[in-house]
């Protein structure tokens, strides 16, 4: 059996490690925003809407990720616009775009003669086959998101916390909201290859929920989410390599286990502290 050290000698494995790192950074930061703002459902909508772009990409023979990018950004803008400017209910808008994207995707994939098994890699992801191009995009996105959060942090925080007040005091609410929802859409699209459409939402929420068990500070939540996401990805990566199961599923599996361990650990810690105070 190979040792972990010899694994590193394979190019694909180094790429997978880099993918795990960039995925943890992009999902860690954007996910902290998603969880804090409670827009998990919006993110689910964007993710599934992007499937329409993948189908169209297949049919017309261009890179499905490009199609996914267009669909996800447009649906993100659609949700943001329609829920604010029309009196449609936000969750209904999401549900419509969610299923519309899936429907378009399914139609075009079935219209494509001999659609490939490659489709599985979009649904379930495979961190071991992430392309160089995808890696470069993930890196750029990671730098972009980190930069934006470092520079605009307080403004993002204030608007996320109390949008009505932010509007009243003329903070750039629209600009920040559209910027953020675009980052959410891009994060989703470029992580599809890593964990797949079905599971990308977990990489945006589980590390953050675990982080939230230990901290109530937004900044710390971001850092912890990145670390937890990275640990989960590496463990999942190894598991998927040895058992030959889809990496996305293996990663999420580890993260959920970690979630339960953290929760139990936290409960024990709390009861110990209570006991100490009572004595």
């Amino acid at each position, binding site marked *: 059996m190979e040792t972990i050290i010899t694994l590193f000698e394979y190019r694909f494995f180094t790429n997978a490690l880099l993918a795990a790192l960039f995925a943890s950074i992009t999902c860690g930061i954007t996910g902290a925003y998603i969880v804090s703002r409670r827009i998990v459902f919006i993110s689910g909508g964007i993710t599934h809407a992007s499937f329409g772009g993948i189908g169209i990409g297949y049919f017309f023979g261009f890179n499905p990720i490009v199609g996914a990018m267009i669909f996800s950004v447009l649906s993100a803008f659609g949700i943001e616009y329609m829920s604010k400017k029309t009196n449609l209910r936000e969750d209904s808008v999401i549900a419509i775009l969610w299923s519309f994207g899936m429907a378009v995707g399914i139609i075009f994939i079935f219209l494509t003669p001999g659609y490939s098994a490659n489709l599985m890699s979009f649904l379930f992801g495979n961190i071991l086959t992430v392309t160089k191009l995808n890696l470069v995009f993930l890196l750029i996105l990671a730098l972009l998101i980190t930069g934006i959060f470092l*520079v605009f942090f307080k403004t993002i925080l*204030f608007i996320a916390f109390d949008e*009505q*007040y932010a509007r009243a005091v003329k903070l750039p609410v629209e600009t920040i909201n559209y910027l953020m929802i675009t980052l959410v859409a891009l994060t989703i699209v470029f992580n599809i290859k890593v964990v797949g459409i079905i599971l990308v939402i977990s990489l945006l929420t589980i590390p953050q929920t675990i982080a939230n068990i230990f901290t109530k*500070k*937004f900044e710390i939540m971001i850092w912890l989410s990145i670390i937890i996401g990275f640990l989960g990805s590496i463990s999942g990566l190894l598991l998927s390599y040895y058992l030959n199961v889809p990496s996305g599923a293996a990663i999420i599996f580890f993260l959920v286990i970690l979630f339960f361990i953290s929760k139990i650990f936290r409960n024990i810690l709390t009861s110990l502290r209570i006991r100490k105070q009572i004595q």
Partner: protein
Amino acid sequence: MDKIIELQNVTAGYGEDIILRNVNIAIHRNDFIGVIGPNGGGKTTLVKVILGLIKPITGKVIYYDSMKEGKQQKIGYLPQNSDTDKVFPISVLDVVLSGLAQPNRLINRFSKAQKAKAREILESTGILHLADKNFGELSGGEMQRVFLCRAIVSDPELLILDEPNTFVDNKFESDLYHTLKKLNEHKAIIMVSHDVGTIAYYVKSIACVNRELHYHQSNIISQEQLDAYNCPIQIIAHGSVPHTILKEHNE
């Protein structure tokens, strides 16, 4: 006296529901206006029009020179129902600092002096010990105090309080009125309240809002006048309030 904001023939509402009709009012530098009226009368709507959160259907809102947007927030605002998420991860100090954020700026960083200012305001409100606490872990009254700090930390030209006395204890209420009196030496204040008795004691003029606005240039108002303004509010004189302020039916 300097006018700071003026509403001219403003009609406003939500979608096709017209809530306020033909409102005219000028706000001056040293005004202290009490806004009263029944539930659903349109007080909060009026506040939102003044803040620019709702655009008038007809008529206009004029902001005079001293209210022109610059580096500082010119209007301090304490909302009635804050729709903030109570578990959002933000510290009390950051909530107060948001009152110092610059209008129309994407980048907001705060100097040592600004942070000191925020702490100073928290201290004067008696909640400095909560500064680093998570906002979501405060009690309703403590949250209300934090929102007041956020509203006044920028020394705004106009302070708008939409029912500031919900949730708070007597001690805070008297502190609040003391703070407001001091602030009013230089700045304008608009305060929405249901507590007509107490409010009349502090304010200089009264605006009765019930789909229309009737502006009463004095803090002495009688039940007959309220009725004439179509403002179905009962005056209940409180023990602490001098009776001369409120003219009751039989006086």
